[in-house]
């Protein structure tokens, strides 16, 4: 139902209509409608995957625990759906903070010591980040309230920003970048992400990695047009530096990962960096690439975690070294893992290839040769870092797993559903989606 409503909102936005529910509180523009669509799609597919996945875990014999899982799942989804449609900045902060509070118990769902440690680390570090973001929001509010009577919304801030002291804007931006950057997993604030995104149940990982980080990045990107009012902030340079740092660090960390769910988690850090760099390149083509990369990341990363979940159910281990010759022991998991690996690494004809290519092309066109060269180098390192272990897992000498269950029907249904945009968007971009991307890209600039 929510997916249908989101598609309807996306169509209305793409056709140029204004979607407003409560003036100054709840509304949606191009960027908001795009993120809303992504959250709904991944939420829907992950819900289908949860069905079969939970029946194969230890929680299957505990119906009360499964009911609690779904209640938390829906509330977590609510918080992520709220982020792109709340136009009041303080409410956005609350929604982003709620995404942590409502998902921390999903991370610890399997109740192992590693899962509990990951949940604590996730909760503490992201709440610390939220405190920084709150400081930034409060400083910004102070600036707005001393400058005039504008409402504390994205539109109000964009109008009022030229009359706010650049010093206040700069200070608030730094707090917001650190605060929401922690949540988005930007280096060096990323340490919680690989733990949380590898210990949570796979459908939750799909949500955390596919869309939760995107919603946090959405919050950062929203401030770009506001902060462009003060050229002395050099917001685009900050984006490029933090973005390249994230892509580079993740690329080198990918090479030494021993757990395949962590592999995909590190790839999330890489993708967040790529989006930030693209936003910082400044040209409209690069902004378009940034929004396209948001879609590509969300659909492909969720597919990767569904493939990882299917592999985990088949092989019973998260260790790369413990899974070999999957193509013979579990062909469905092997094919899904291979497609997921190729797609997320950026191989053609998948959607990530097209979005990364458009960003690199925009980088060259706008004269950012060094940035583009570094980005290309890091993407190539990450490509090898992802595909070498996956190749060994799929085609290596088979290890027979003792009495492993077969792949569930819901896993196959989810993999097919989630795989459609991964393939399709790499070959063809529908007109309304192109228009939505264009509007979303326009929201990133003044």
């Amino acid at each position, binding site marked *: 139902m929510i997916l249908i409503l989101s598609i309807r*909102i996306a169509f209305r936005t793409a056709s140029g209509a204004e979607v407003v529910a409560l003036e100054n509180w709840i509304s949606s523009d191009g960027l908001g409608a795009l993120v809303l669509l992504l959250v709904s799609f991944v939420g829907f597919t992950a819900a289908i995957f949860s069905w079969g996945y939970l029946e194969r875990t230890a929680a299957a014999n505990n119906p009360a625990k499964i*009911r609690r899982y*779904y209640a938390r799942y*829906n509330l977590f989804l609510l918080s992520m759906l709220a982020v792109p449609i709340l136009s009041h900045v303080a409410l956005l902060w609350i929604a982003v903070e709620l995404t942590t509070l409502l998902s921390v118990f999903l991370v610890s769902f399997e109740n192992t010591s590693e899962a509990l440690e990951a949940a604590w680390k996730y909760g503490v570090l992201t709440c610390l980040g939220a405190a920084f973001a709150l400081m930034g929001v409060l400083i910004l509010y102070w600036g707005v309230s001393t400058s005039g009577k504008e409402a504390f919304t994205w539109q109000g801030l964009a109008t009022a920003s030229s009359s706010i002291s650049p010093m206040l804007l700069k200070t608030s931006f730094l707090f917001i970048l650190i605060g929401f950057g922690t949540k988005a997993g930007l280096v060096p604030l990323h340490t919680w992400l690989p733990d949380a995104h590898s210990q949570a149940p796979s459908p939750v990982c799909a949500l955390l990695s596919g869309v939760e980080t995107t919603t946090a990045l959405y919050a950062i990107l929203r401030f770009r047009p506001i902060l462009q009012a003060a050229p002395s902030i050099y917001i685009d340079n900050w984006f490029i530096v933090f973005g390249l740092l994230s892509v580079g660090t993740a690329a080198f960390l990918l090479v030494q990962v021993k757990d395949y769910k962590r592999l995909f988690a590190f790839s999330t850090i890489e993708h967040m960096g790529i989006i930030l760099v693209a936003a910082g390149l400044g040209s409209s083509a690069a902004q378009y690439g940034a929004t396209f990369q948001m879609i590509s990341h969300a659909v492909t990363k969720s597919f990767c975690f569904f493939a990882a979940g299917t592999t985990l159910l088949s092989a019973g281990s998260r260790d790369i070294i413990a899974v070999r010759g999957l193509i013979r022991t579990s062909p469905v998991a092997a094919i899904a893992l291979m497609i997921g690996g190729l797609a997320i690494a950026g191989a053609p004809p998948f959607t990530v290839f097209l979005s990364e290519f458009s960003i690199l092309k925009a980088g060259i066109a706008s004269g950012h040769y060094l940035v583009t060269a570094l980005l290309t180098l890091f993407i190539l390192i990450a490509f090898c870092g992802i595909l070498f272990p996956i190749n060994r897992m799929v085609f290596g000498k088979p290890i027979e797993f003792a009495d492993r269950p077969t792949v569930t029907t819901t896993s196959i249904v989810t993999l097919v559903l989630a795989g459609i945009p991964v393939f399709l968007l790499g070959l063809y971009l529908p007109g309304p989606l192109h228009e939505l991307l264009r509007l979303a890209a326009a929201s990133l600039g003044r």
Partner: protein
Amino acid sequence: MDLIYILIIPVLVAGLSLIPIGKRGASIVTILGL
């Protein structure tokens, strides 16, 4: 109104999924809601 429904439906579904309605009740309610 669509935006309001988007905020209301997950709360309703979260509440409904807590009701013990069969082994797969919570899964079905969630999938239908989303």
